[in-house]
């Protein structure tokens, strides 16, 4: 894949990649954007190469997931060294998110909360399957785990989401 084609593919999947980066970064938009930029740097430096073994989307999502995990580890290390500074920065970023306030409908808040309450693996599988509409096989490729494991996480996640939405009476309101 040449440079222009790669750029076109990245541009095509940019919005979806951002959505997935949001999921991997606990819905922190600044962190998600940083991760996305770090992924593009990896691609430009040749550290992440698409070998055509999977679809471009699943490859990109796997790179985003790994980069987000790296950033998380790096942040933990930084937090240990300069904890007070990082804490202050985080508070600023939380305040500087008026856009989040604008589009939050009640239902979206409910779904986000339900997702955030799920364990990490279940949340990732639910996001990949329901949000990005990937198959279970593709989700397994992105997460680097077996299809059986993904299926288990998917079933548990779906069950918990359903329970949660029943408790929140989401289904009743829509009928």
């Amino acid at each position, binding site marked *: 894949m040449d440079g222009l084609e790669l750029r076109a593919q990245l541009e095509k999947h940019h919005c979806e990649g951002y959505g997935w980066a949001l999921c991997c970064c606990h819905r922190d938009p600044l962190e998600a954007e940083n991760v996305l930029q770090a992924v593009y740097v990896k691609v*430009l430096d040749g550290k992440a190469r698409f070998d055509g073994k999977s679809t471009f989307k699943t490859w990109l999502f796997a790179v985003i997931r790994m980069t987000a995990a790296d950033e998380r580890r790096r942040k933990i290390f930084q937090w240990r060294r300069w904890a007070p500074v990082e804490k202050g920065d985080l508070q600023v970023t939380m305040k500087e998110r008026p856009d989040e306030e604008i589009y939050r409908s009640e239902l979206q808040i409910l779904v986000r909360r339900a997702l955030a309450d799920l364990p990490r693996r279940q949340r990732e599988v639910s996001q990949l399957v329901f949000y990005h509409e990937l198959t279970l096989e593709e989700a397994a490729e992105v997460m680097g785990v077996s299809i059986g494991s993904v299926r288990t996480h998917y079933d548990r996640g779906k069950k918990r989401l359903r329970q949660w939405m029943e408790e929140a009476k989401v289904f009743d309101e829509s009928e």
Partner: protein
Amino acid sequence: MNQNEEEKKIRELFRELRRADEQFAPPFAKDWNAALSHAGKARRPWRVFRVAAAVAMLIVFVWSGITSYRAQSPIPFSHLAWGIASSEFNRGSEAWFDQQVGGLKTDDTRRLP
């Protein structure tokens, strides 16, 4: 509501969430240009430099150790017989000892019963 309908509803909710997120996605050009400005500035050259500096320091340290040992050693450095088997080394050092003592040792030992 049966399970399929519930699943449909969950998918629908997630689709709405996705649409909302995509509205607030940063423009691709912005992230791409930021990445372009950072690309190629890998930290590896700095790491390589640090490793090279450490190796150079180690070489200097070892070399200074050897030269100071040579200066202090009673046996000339040429007699140390580097890389020669230990038996040959012993033979070499015995010859040197004989030279230094002037054959006294060998004569004395021959006189012994």
